[in-house]
């Protein structure tokens, strides 16, 4: 009590000097700077693209090629009833199968999205836009990826109304109508996200999944279940393989300079 009071009196003297020369207690209004450091670092890590070495990376880049197989035999694919929209029906002569599980007798699984999960460093900026096409009341590609900031050009090649309803969690959700054949709309995703589901509310069966990644190191398995991730800077990465029905798998790969790395994923039906 007493102590405190006398301190205040001393402080009084301090104030007079403070008013007189306006100095002292300069940083009182601001937090200590070490706090600042970690805040900045926290803020900085928002976009993974940071640091240099891009040129070096491209020079001795390696490539990952892989195969995706499906163990066990899945339920036969359902055929899509397009009766609701004659325009769709007209587009196809043969019955159309759903795109979710596309596997050939050899058990090679298509529409599996494989990507480098933990790529740090500079990624080459995308130049030409990615295409999402609506053909015969189906999305092409059914599974694919775009880069952050890359233009996604959505085209309607059907003589019917499609609406493109993207349902991302972190990016901005949109839902555009494309009543006119050949009509295109450009969209850009500015945050990485795996996956962004697309659907057409007009045609219930139409769906697509696009991954938004900060780098171009991803691939989708084709009918033969093979995929490729080209000119990847050497290093050790975590590969993740994603399938809309069978979930995800990950594995570690180390890519030596100019190496052709072979990997394989095997999903399990049921």
């Amino acid at each position, binding site marked *: 009590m007493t102590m*405190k*009071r006398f301190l*205040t*009196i001393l*402080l*009084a*003297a*301090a*104030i*007079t000097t*403070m*008013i*007189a*020369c*306006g100095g002292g*207690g*300069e*940083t*009182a*209004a*601001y*937090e200590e*700077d070490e*706090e*600042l450091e970690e*805040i900045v670092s926290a*803020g900085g890590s928002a976009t993974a693209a940071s640091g240099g070495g891009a040129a070096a990376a491209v020079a001795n880049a390696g490539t990952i090629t892989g195969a995706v197989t499906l163990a066990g035999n899945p339920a036969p694919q359902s055929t899509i*009833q397009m*009766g*609701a*929209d004659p325009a769709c029906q007209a587009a196809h002569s043969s019955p159309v199968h759903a795109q979710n599980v596309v596997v050939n007798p050899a058990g090679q699984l298509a529409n599996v999205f494989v990507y480098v999960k933990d790529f740090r460093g500079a990624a080459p900026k995308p130049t030409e836009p990615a295409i999402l096409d609506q053909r015969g009341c189906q999305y092409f590609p059914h599974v694919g990826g775009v880069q952050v900031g890359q233009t996604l050009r959505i085209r309607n090649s059907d*003589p*019917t*109304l499609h*609406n*493109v*309803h993207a*349902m991302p969690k972190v990016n*901005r*959700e*949109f*839902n*555009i*109508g*494309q*009543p*006119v*054949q*050949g*009509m295109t*709309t450009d969209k850009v995703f500015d945050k990485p996200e795996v996956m962004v589901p697309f659907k057409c*509310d*007009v*045609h*219930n*069966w139409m769906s697509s999944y696009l991954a938004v990644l900060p780098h171009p190191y991803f691939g989708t398995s084709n009918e033969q279940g093979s995929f490729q991730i080209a000119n990847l800077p050497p290093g050790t990465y975590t590969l993740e393989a994603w399938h809309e029905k069978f979930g995800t798998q990950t594995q570690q790969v180390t890519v030596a300079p100019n190496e052709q790395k072979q990997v394989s994923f095997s999903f399990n039906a049921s």
Partner: protein
Amino acid sequence: MKPQEPIPHNYRMSTLNKVFALSSLALLALVGAMVMYDYARGWKRFQLEFLRVQRDRITQQLEVARRATGEEQLRALDQRMREGEADIARKRAELREAEDTVREWEGRHYRADQDFRFAKAVLDSLRYEAEVLALRKARGWEGKQQEFREQETRVERLKLVLEDVSASRDAALARRDGILSRIAEIEREKKDLLADVELLEKQLATVDFKRPEFLLLNMPLLDFVSPTLKVEQVVLNDMFVDMNYMVVPRVDRCMTCHKGIDRPGFESREEAQRLIAELEGKLDGFQIAPDRIADTMARIEQLRPIAEARRNLRNPYRTHPRLDMFVGSASPHPLLEYGCTSCHRGLDRATDFARAGHTPSSEEQQKRWEEHYGWKRQPFLESPMHPRQYFEASCIKCHSGEVRVDEADRISEGTQMIELYGCAGCHKIDNWRFQDLRKPGPDLRGIAEKTSPEWTVRWLTNPKDFRATTRMPSFFYLRNMVGPHIGPAERESNEKKQNAEIQAIVAYLFANSTRRGWPEGPSGDPARGAALVDTVGCYGCHVAQETVTDSAGAVRTANRDDFPLERNYGFNLVGTGTKTRSDWLFHWLKNPRNYYQQAPMPDLRLTDQEAADITAWLMSLRKPDFMNMPVAPADRAALSELSRSYMITSMTERETDARLASMTSQQQLVFLGQRTIEKYGCFGCHDIKGFEDAKPIGTELTIEGSKNIHLFDFGFVHDFETESGEHEHVLHTVPSWIYAKVRSPRVFDDQRERGYHDKLKMPNFFFTRNEAEAVTGVVLGLTKDRVAPERIAARTSEARVAQEGRKLVSQNNCRACHVVDGHGGAIAQTVEDPGMLPPDLGPEGSRVQSDWLFAFLKDPTVMALRPWLGARMPTFHFSDGEADKITRYFAADANVPTFETDDGISPHPQSAAVGGIVFDMLRCAQCHPTQAVAATAEADLASLAPNLQLSRERLRHDWVPDWILRPNEIVPGTRMPTNFPRNAETGEYESPLTLAIGSPQFASYRQALLQHFRSEEEMLQALADAPRISHHLRDYIWTIGIRSMPPARDPVEEPPPYTPETPPPAPAPGVQSTSLRVPGGETPGR
């Protein structure tokens, strides 16, 4: 006479002088110290610091501004200036002459003007005199009048003179200015160029605390004149402090130190980052009015340097983090009307950090404060500030009349919890929000029809054993009965007594239960039942899982906060088969009101078969091991001891013994049961026979928040383990006490010596930290603080009705399926396809016509709006009053009138025609049926949209075009595609039609359209104009709409007569059953 001998002094003068000198010096010094002591106020330091901060900010801006002003521009101006001066120098003679004339004429003008004004003055006085004389009919008034007239003419003349003079003066001025014009103009330009720089420089001067006048004004002793460092305050005439003897307006002085609180530009770094993100989001979302866009941009620019600044500003200098909601002059709670302490509490008039009642929100903050500001707890402060997590509590002060406080989600959640968990059943809360609530527990007057005593006993023993997610709290075997602090002997006797109490309650309930026989329903198929439950929407209110797999992939037992509040509204379906009897269940499903008039479960209009299927499925959900749980029969000794403990209050020892001896143990059980129900207040949440008008047993909470701390019994508790094994620390503060009480209601009995009946009775809800904090927040908000009536939210009669409706929305758990004012839609968890979700009611008020909504609420079958939805809009059997309230709520929420004009009864045919064509072009029909749809296998219902025939009766006239234009902005994530995307820059709507009309496959439409327009251009113009198109479409839709709505019918089959008075058959089945046999107890009737 002889000379007197010198008288010696008693003291040595030199010593005295020294003492005198020293002591007076000491006095002088002390007086100085005294002045400084009075002068040195903590807030002055903060104000100085803030000036320094301001100085830094302004100097930064100044640099920016300086860089902005083009140097070469300035140079050019100076150049021209010089030329101009040279030019003038050339015409010096002329200029001088002109100036002379000006001077001369100025002089004349002055004189003339003066003459005129004086003359007028005289005139007025003359008028007065004349009038007075005339009034008195005094002599000589004609003379005066004459005089007055003359003066009038004089004034006239002087006026003319003045006009001439000023005319020629202006001429002279014009002539001079003409010569000087060039320079003048250059100077003006220069001024504009340097405008903001100069402004900033001015500001800089004002915050410079080194300039002499600043020092002079703030000198000790001199600072009484007009100091610049001074206490600032706002007087809040609508916010009151209760001083016990009188209620005085608040006088907030917080801004004396928190000087930046209401000025944007002093945010913390994190705050700035958040704000920038938020504002940019708004800009992208076109949520900002065009006229505000510029300001928003400016604000973002202002924030950016702060967000990237090296040093982070700290309090008390920061801006209020929610300037848009509070403090800001444009916000709903401006500083001048609401101040600070009316929400934050604390001592309003204090200007000293410690005295103001700052409350640290964490231990380390407390430490920092103690060393930096000499903070310590204020024993005498009755309303210290709420710690950070309870800031929202004060909202209730004004918003007590609202069901939810928008933006204050914690409080809203807490409020709803208090409603759902039935706190108000035991604790009287004299507050509109918590009055006439439905009892949260089921009706127990017919318990025997529904379940068995064996089950009930086990249930009461610990409800959580049966359902981890149940809302029913545990009353028995809690810490103050069998906890670690209880000695073994006492624990044993307590266990016996608790069991006896449980058995007794069950005995009473079953002895007083009705026993209507319910005919068995048809046999059902569990599989179909499961499917039905999944589709018709049971999962909006119910959960049917006991375990959840958390993010790590591990499986664990689910607890309440794994599911949204709405889904805990109904009980967890698992175990229903073990609990209920199938015959009862069937009829309950058919229509819950058959059993209970206030049943919270709505009528899903199930057919007998459906009901039977669901029953079959539910009965298959069993928990056999629960029934295997051993239950000891009621201990005879404990039973009679408890019974006597009640009897003894009204009888003597001997009488009691006699009475006990005369009672069979069954009778004792029933007697004890009644008293135990009384003791624990079960009737607070359940309807129980014999307790129809029992009073709530708990403490009244109406003004709990402003209760004085010494009225709280902290017992001996400082740190304790909650039942869930978490560690909690109890501070000696009201919030901390309430939190602990809610978290672990009987904790304050720890280490207390108390009789069995004196122990705390409040049951344990096993609230998690979050839940407990939410509830605590609300309780803290229930204060006796008063505000002026005009500050109370929702106080108009219209608003009251709307809130009543809102209350119904909350009570009937509409949010389980629908999103209402941005919350709810819990059912989405269980529906994969968003297309199958019940509609979002965000815009319902502005969307639908009130009389339609009213009819629909009364009877949802009135219009099969979304035939594809599996989930059914249940029939709630709303009374007209209720339906009206809800309708009014939605209307008020969208602030639209509750009755419509006959807008668009006859839309303009041409407009409709154009609409029709566009309708086809945009292929609206692809989703929107325009006649009744047949649910064929072919048509895939999930991709359908509402039938447009119904729109005319259902939708509001002016809403449709708006919806067509920007569906995604009104209902984010809607399936309705955006056909007219906005232009990213201008925010204008763009029409795809102009592009489309050109393409070949639209040729036919083109022809059709042209007939309705005078020229091609006009057509294209029209097609490009999205808003106009939307109106055309609306008009078309109106033409195809049906004209009248089928009348609402109330499809309730009359529930069988409810007969609670059926006498309990003796012996009650509860007693026959093995688990309830009382040793040696003769059950009557054998």
